[in-house]
């Protein structure tokens, strides 16, 4: 359903991009830059999760796995090989290769199973990696973690802001192309009715594995960028909270729309920032996660398609009749 015409959509997108590009010149507060950088990184992560949840209809509870792999690959390379650009590039390359291999293995093993088995298995795999990271102390230093140097280019908050921003836009375009490719269309079909897609002759397992590889590599990129902002890594990158963040962002922003995932990342990151700031004055807000949890449940019950879905519904009210009519005629023809 095309709600806004392509032209208007493009204009809005362009305005947002332009706005974000000039923000550092208008408002040069450091915390604002850091917050927005964080938003961009988590927007990449949320988009990758949305490829699975929104576009393919599979629920992974172990998405932090790929985030953590990206984080540790980049952190280890920067730590061992010195904080230069080549070691960052090498870390990213290793992260991508590892993400492809691991998502392929997990996908082939468990995507044959029904959704709840897959959810459970991915949760178990991510916990396995968490334990591995905690036990393999000679490599990861366990829960204490380690710090490392980052390239000078990344140390400057302003240039890193633009780097993550460019990454977000590039990945958004790539993922958009992926979802609109023929493979992406098959994924959409699988999410609506897997048996039917199978009956039409598509090997659904292969397409689902492709989706999980795309999602895994994208998540690894976000993990790699994330540790660069912190210049520190420990086992929390593998914790279930990271997966929950992705879930919250995609659910609240709206599943099945990449823009929704980005908006969700913005909302959640801002809320977390705001609520934890509030907690320093009002101790009641110390356990703000509970508010996010309640919001999340509320969204699933009330607005299963998230804010993007709500927005679509409101703005589509006028156009709905027309498209319904068109759909009906179309389905009659195919039937």
């Amino acid at each position: 359903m095309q709600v806004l015409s392509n032209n208007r959509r493009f204009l809005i997108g362009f305005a947002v991009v332009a706005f974000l590009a000039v923000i550092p010149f208008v408002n040069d507060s450091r915390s604002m830059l850091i917050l927005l950088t964080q938003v961009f990184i988590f927007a990449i992560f949320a988009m990758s999760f949305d490829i699975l949840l929104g576009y393919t209809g599979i629920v992974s509870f172990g998405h932090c796995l790929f985030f953590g792999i990206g984080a540790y690959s980049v952190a280890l390379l920067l730590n061992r090989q010195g904080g230069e650009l080549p070691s960052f590039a090498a870390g990213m390359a290793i992260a991508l290769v590892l993400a492809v291999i691991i998502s392929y293995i997990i996908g082939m093993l468990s995507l044959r199973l029904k959704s709840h088995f897959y959810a459970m298995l991915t949760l178990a795999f991510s916990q396995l990696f968490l334990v591995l990271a905690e036990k393999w102390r000679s490599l990861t230093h366990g829960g204490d973690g380690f710090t490392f140097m980052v390239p000078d280019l990344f140390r400057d908050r302003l240039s890193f802001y633009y780097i993550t921003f460019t990454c977000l836009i590039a990945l958004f375009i790539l993922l958009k192309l992926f979802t609109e490719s023929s493979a992406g269309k098959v994924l959409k079909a699988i999410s609506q009715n897997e048996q039917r897609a199978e009956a039409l002759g598509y090997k659904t397992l292969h397409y689902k594995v492709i989706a999980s590889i795309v999602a895994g590599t994208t998540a690894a990129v976000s993990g790699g960028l994330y540790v660069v902002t912190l210049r520190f890594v420990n086992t929390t990158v593998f914790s279930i909270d990271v997966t929950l963040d992705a879930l919250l962002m995609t659910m609240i922003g709206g599943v099945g729309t990449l823009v929704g995932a980005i908006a969700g990342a913005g909302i959640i990151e801002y809320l977390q920032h705001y609520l934890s700031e509030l907690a320093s004055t009002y101790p009641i807000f110390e356990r703000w996660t509970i508010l996010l949890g309640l919001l999340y449940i509320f969204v699933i019950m009330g607005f299963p398609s998230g804010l993007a879905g709500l927005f679509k519904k409101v703005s589509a009210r006028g156009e709905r009749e027309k498209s319904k009519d068109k759909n009906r005629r179309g389905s009659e023809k195919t039937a």
Partner: protein
Amino acid sequence: MDILVNLFVNGISTGMLIFLLASGLTLIFGLMSVLNFAHGGLFAWGAFSGVWIFAETGSFLVSMLGAVVIGMALGLILERFLIRPVYGNHVRQLLITLGGMLVLSEMLKVIWGPNPIRANLPEWLSGSYQLGGIILIKYRLFVILIGILVYILLILLLNKTKLGLMIRAGVMDKEMVQALGINVKSLFSFVFLLGAGVAALGGVLLAPYSGVVFAEMGMQYAILAFVVVIIGGMGSLKGSAVASLIVGLAGAFMAYYLPDFSLALNMLLLAFVLLVKPSGLFGEEGEV
């Protein structure tokens, strides 16, 4: 020799605790194909409220009873307000029960604070029996005893009562049972409450066993219970019991001989079962 016996007792008692958690999970899944990610939260609530009641009253039996009641009350709320609205929609069920888990474990931190709490053994269960060179810790034997008792009660309930007959029939074919005029939804509510109570019992028994309770324990044990439920076969009580003992024993022996690999072992077991027989040891064929 005494090491072997000790490891065996440890393994069986851990297995019993996992069984208490897994039994509810497997029945709930078998009856309504609801996979309840919040089940571990009920377990953790059982542990925390058990420790709290024990500290207040000084009676372990009262704390067991109280924890079970609290677990069931939470189970009732969960079932009524979270799971019932999303029946039949697997993706939303998965998402919403995980949300339930998050809220349950955060609530624990709101009420009892974010730090781990020490759990004490009751006087009459501390100490151990000595048989030759073999030391048997009383509390572990107690856990095994309770586990066996719960298993027997559940089997009796399922096999000897009319209610159990309805539950078993519902696990096999719920449309047919519904067509025969039995309200599957209220049957399910009952099973959910039962599972919640047993999970809370598992939690309260675990607390003195591990000596400390913390909010994340629910997730940790839930993962073990999921492994057990898959290995044993979804919906099979007997399968869960056998798989719990396997996982418990394997964990105990591995923790002694190859401590770093004890979790990996469960994952290997799980991957093996899924590859060879995805429906689990005692599961119905064609379920997956």
